[in-house]
């Protein structure tokens, strides 16, 4: 077990190193923060001076080594636009993004599992068809569009909920709903197919033969087994939610990492882009690791390959 964990952790570190090179290069290939900080008619000397001040005139490999050395010391550089430590700016936004992603996930898991179980129990009957139909539609709706519609209906039309920003629980509802749509769809579908399989198995027949009520059969016996693949999916969904949050945060002006990163990309604020990408990818890599570990823990039958 220890060797397995060690190997997986090492792999994760290699992945992160690769990501850091990629992010570094991609951010620099398409533009330059100085061109975006200064108006178009700024004289050439002003631009050149700023580029030198920021050390952006050094060759890319030199810049990368500088970046890596300080990053290993926990210094991700200073935001070019905000002149504040980039890592701190990203960390300050992390709670907002975590709050949004986890709420969406909890919402998605709850609704998704309920829908999935209902569909599986009434397999091929109208509730099943309804769930399948609704999730197909849900899957094809872009999150930003759903977000705008939700904001227009609940925020503008009815005036029940805030349209944007982050002020208390009420402002969390709409972004979490629109971001939660994706996990509802995937979790309900997976729960459904997994439950359909499980409900056909021998131990379920035995449970029914014992004379247990159907709800006990479904919830106590079948669901517990049927949920196993869903746990894996939950972890993977969290990664997808983090990337989905980029758009949702933009629509609802939610002060999270995604919005910070989009802003930083548009302004070529390299240090923030790098810090955000690394924090994000570290998180996703860590979740994948965790899911694997939790999985082996939840089901002792799964042995380490």
């Amino acid at each position, binding site marked *: 077990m220890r060797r397995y964990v060690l190997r997986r952790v090492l792999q994760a570190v290699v992945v992160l190193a690769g990501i850091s090179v990629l992010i570094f290069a991609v951010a620099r290939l398409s533009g330059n923060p100085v*061109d975006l900080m200064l108006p*178009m008619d700024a004289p050439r000397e002003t631009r050149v001076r700023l580029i030198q001040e920021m050390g952006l005139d050094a060759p890319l490999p030199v810049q990368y080594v500088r970046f890596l050395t300080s990053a290993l010391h926990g210094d991700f550089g200073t935001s070019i636009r905000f002149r504040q430590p980039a890592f701190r700016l990203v960390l300050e936004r992390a709670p907002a993004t975590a709050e949004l992603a986890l709420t969406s996930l909890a919402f998605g898991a709850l609704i998704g599992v309920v829908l999935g179980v209902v569909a599986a129990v009434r397999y091929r009957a109208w509730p099943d068809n309804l769930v399948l139909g609704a999730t197909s539609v849900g899957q094809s709706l872009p999150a930003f569009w759903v977000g705008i519609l939700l904001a227009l209906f609940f925020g503008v039309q009815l005036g029940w909920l805030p349209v944007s920003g982050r002020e208390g629980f009420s402002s969390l509802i709409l972004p979490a709903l629109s971001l939660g749509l994706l996990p509802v769809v995937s979790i309900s579908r997976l729960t459904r197919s997994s439950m359909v399989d499980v409900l056909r198995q021998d131990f379920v027949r035995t449970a029914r033969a014992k004379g247990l009520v159907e709800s006990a059969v479904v919830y106590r016996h079948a669901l517990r087994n049927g949920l196993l693949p869903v746990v894996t999916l939950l972890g993977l969904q969290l990664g997808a939610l983090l990337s989905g949050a980029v758009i949702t945060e933009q629509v609802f002006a939610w*002060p999270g990492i995604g919005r910070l990163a989009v802003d930083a990309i548009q302004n070529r604020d390299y240090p923030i882009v790098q810090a955000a990408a690394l924090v994000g990818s570290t998180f996703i890599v860590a979740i994948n690791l965790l899911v694997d570990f939790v999985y082996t823990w939840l089901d002792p039958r799964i042995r380490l390959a």
Partner: protein
Amino acid sequence: MTYRFGVFAVVLLMLFAVAAVPAPGAPAVSRAVVLQSSDPTSLDPHNHRETPTGNVNRHLYDPLLFRDPRTPTRFVPILANTWYQITETTFEFTLKPGVRFANGEPFNAEAVKFNLDRVLGRTNEKLPLNAYAFTTVRGAEVVDDLTVRIITKAPDPVLLSRLSTLYMVPPKLTREQGRDGLQKNPAGTGPYILKSFVPNDRLVLEAKPNYHMGKPRIDEVIFRGIAEAATRNAELRAGNADVIVNVPPDSIEEINSSGKAVAKSTPSTRVAIFFLNTLEYPQLKDRRVRQALNHAVDVDSIVKHVMRDYGLRVPTIVAPYFAGFNTTLKPYAYDVDRAKRLLAEAGYPNGFDMEILVPQGRYLLGVEAAQAVAGYLNKVGIRTRLNVVEFGVFARVTQERKIKESMYAAWGNSYFNPLDAYKALVVSGNDAFSWYSNKQVDELWQKAASTGDLRRHADYLRQIEELIYQDPPFIFLFAQKDLYGVSNRLNWEPRQDEIIFMFEAAVK
């Protein structure tokens, strides 16, 4: 296994519970909420060059003089009571007595001198970002506590415009706090002080009751940065915002019919320009070809149908409300036959290839307008290829001088005077946007830039406009209009210089 699932569920629920935070209550004060497209990047007014940042800073700091909102070519006194020109290169300012910065420091002639020293790089700091706007200035001289002279290297006809953008920072505090100090702890003589700033959320300003121009009518001004136009629009219609910027023309109906807000527009200083690379492409060196292109495009129709009248056609690149606008020039007539004839005369009866570079999402309907121009050019045989890029890429390509035959950009002008625009766009040189060279224009520009006589200055500007009209370096288009959404509870009219200053507004 039941136990393990239980733990898992409890952890999830706990994470969920963390999300629930109570909402703060609202105090009973008059307030205005302004939604811009982004947060301010700096609360040091000398260290940024962006409109959204400038708008926030205007509330915290004052300039010596400020553009009259109704007659933008005129100035009204703010920190200076009076000013007059002593010599061709010297202006003397008499300052308003008894003004203090928010930190208690007195505002006086020494403070003015410090501010000029700062943008001229004579303090111990790095040169601030706005320094290049003051390269014509030699320095400031303190005459007495409330009298200061500002001296330029040569006569500078736009000195007052430049000074209207120089917001005064407190010398002592700025020196003590170092380069990024004002960012965290701003202090100016402006009508508001900073109450709180949560980046990506909101910046709250509180009125200064003893402001030297009178107590602000609005107690609290909130700035929020929301990048999505649809979200700003929704907030306005939900009654949570009082001013929103950059309203897309297709949302006007929606705003006006909401019963909560109206769309307001003003002609802006930003002029859309279709640049032609007259230096590197032989076909575009030929004056007849460039005249032909101007005749080939139905600009009136583009203004009406693409811009939905949120544009004002101009004969060249100078708006009618700029200094030196040449009233004798009439826009090029839309005349396809003439365009074809001119092209044939120049030796291009079958047209030529033309790439058009245009940034996405930067200018009001920029891509749509460029598409429309391309469509008209196709009709006279020019084979166009639209290259739509993100603005960061556009900025890089243009700064590296790598454009092909043409590009579309809208040029801002905070001085209401085409002098700097001419320098950047038509005077020979290797600046990013200068794709034209004409000795006569260069000479006239030198004269215009170095005369202290404003009448002669305007006359030189008119002559330059005449020259570029006859020998067009661009396809001439239109001045944009700025579009705002304004809530019904706010009394506010947009300014032509894009500045949003809530001291000029009142809550009904």
